[in-house]
């Protein structure tokens, strides 16, 4: 069967995001296994270094361009993307599962009447068919699915697939100026959380729980996070108590994360929290209660008082950083 893969590249401020490179490399792997073509689409204005995605395995990119498309517009982006997918006859569509990807993927699925598997952590090929694995119940269960539609859409969880270079080549860019994009729904402003890394994108996360004993003690969490170039996270209990903003919440009603290192401070490890961070590569827990469930999944633990242990950690890390 003649498959054709189309990958959505996401740009923010003219920069291609890392999750998109992961998607390109994954599409490259699939296209070699399924012996089919692959290409990419990007929507935006000026984009830096777009040719370089050739290094990750895709050599053909269509770039829809208009100064009003610099920021995300759900209506314009999904129309351009959906129409192009039809025009080019894509049968497999790969989308990074970022906030933009999550918003656009279902719109494309509805436009193309296509099956959709969101937030995949692996795409395996069995008998020439793609089997996608995706965590459900916030990671308590892994679900394998197969799509039986003509067009199949997969979104990939960031930080799970690798974005390795496969060679050196410059992608061929077809630039198309868009006249009158459909801006019925559009982003008019972006409010950045000043100087803060987001837990969904961070390599290291330092999270605090009820054991921090009050909003006023989170400077310890933040100091450690800053020292490690990490994002600060929080448990549901402290978000519900109003100590921390919801954007920091890790767990089933917050964000599911897979950083390289997750440091849990004063977090006992409720089932909904563990579900959201158990796929972290290394987990460190500091908690007074030796029976806290968090120790059952931690690689390294200290049973002790966070108010003594964390300042000591800060001192010790400063030593190795100098």
């Amino acid at each position: 069967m003649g498959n054709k893969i189309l990958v959505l590249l996401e740009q923010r401020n003219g920069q291609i995001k890392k999750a998109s490179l992961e998607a390109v490399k994954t599409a490259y792997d699939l296209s070699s296994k399924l012996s089919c073509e692959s290409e990419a689409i990007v929507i935006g204005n000026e984009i830096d270094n777009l040719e370089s995605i050739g290094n990750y395995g895709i050599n053909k990119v269509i770039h829809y361009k208009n100064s009003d498309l610099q920021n995300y517009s759900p209506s314009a982006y999904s129309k351009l993307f959906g129409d192009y997918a039809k025009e080019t006859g894509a049968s497999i569509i790969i989308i990074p599962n970022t906030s933009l990807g999550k918003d656009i993927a279902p719109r494309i699925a509805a436009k193309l009447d296509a099956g959709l598997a969101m937030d995949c952590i692996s795409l395996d090929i069995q008998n020439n068919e793609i089997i996608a694995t995706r965590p459900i119940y916030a990671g308590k269960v892994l679900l394998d699915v197969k799509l039986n539609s003509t067009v199949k859409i997969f979104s990939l969880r960031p930080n799970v697939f690798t974005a390795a270079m496969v060679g050196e080549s410059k992608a061929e860019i077809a630039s198309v100026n868009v006249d009158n994009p459909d801006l019925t729904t559009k982003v008019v402003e972006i409010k950045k959380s000043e100087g803060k890394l987001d837990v969904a994108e961070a390599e290291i996360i330092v999270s605090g729980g009820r054991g921090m004993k009050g909003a006023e003690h989170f400077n310890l969490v933040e100091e450690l996070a800053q020292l490690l170039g990490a994002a600060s996270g929080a448990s549901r209990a402290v978000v519900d108590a109003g100590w921390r903003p919801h954007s920091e919440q890790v767990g089933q009603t917050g964000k599911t994360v897979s950083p390289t290192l997750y440091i849990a401070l004063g977090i006992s490890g409720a089932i909904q929290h563990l579900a959201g961070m158990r796929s972290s590569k290394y987990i460190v827990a500091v908690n007074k209660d030796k029976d806290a469930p968090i120790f059952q999944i931690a690689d390294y633990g200290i049973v002790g008082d966070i108010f003594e242990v964390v300042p000591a950690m800060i001192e010790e890390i400063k030593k190795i950083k100098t």
Partner: protein
Amino acid sequence: MKIAVCVSHVPDTAAKINITGDGKGIDQTGVTYVVNPYDEFAIEEALKTKEKSGGDTVAISLGGEANKETLRKALAMGIDNAVLLKDDSYRDSLSVAKALAEEIKTQNAELVFFGKQSVDFDNSVVGQMAAELLGYNCISVVVDFKLEGNKVIAEREIEGGKEVVETLLPAIITAQKGLNEPRYASLKGIMAAKKKVIEEKPAATAANFVDVVTMKRPAPKQAGKIVGTDATAVPELIRLLHEEAKVI
């Protein structure tokens, strides 16, 4: 104005989830079901919008008899009417969206709230799909919502910040935690909800494109080592992270 809110009935987030013997579904034994947490924010926003701009509210749920519990909760919180689209069978997201879109059309709802995702299958897609099928505008993962005439101004959460998004009615909004504080049902509300009739009709049929191959548990993580029981263990912990794990 007609305001609809779509709600789902899901296992409590504190529930331990076990897989059935055939690996195709979830063992229901001992699992408590609740209103999908994000849908509570959707219900609250529908009520707030009605209080401010007037109109009628209706809650719609697709599923089995048990979903009535969730619809009753919506009624108890103050939603005017409830519709159950009956279907006990497995449906993928697009098939759910098609049935809900049909009902939204029947209800002639101009503004529809969804939770941003159901905490069972975690797809986070049905609201956007329904909007696309209906030709409605849609803003997902919303933490702030304003309606000025027929103009919608919402803030949606993105990596490291928020996007302020504008659009027009008719629209679908998917609610993220932080949008509001859902109210508790009053005793009066609970009593009134018991007397209300939940309208029942079969859900519109639609094909499934997503086949379940199997469900499995994630590989268990081995408990690691307890490095120590006070601050004196810190140098060893940092050494392990630096030299063994090589993560700092």
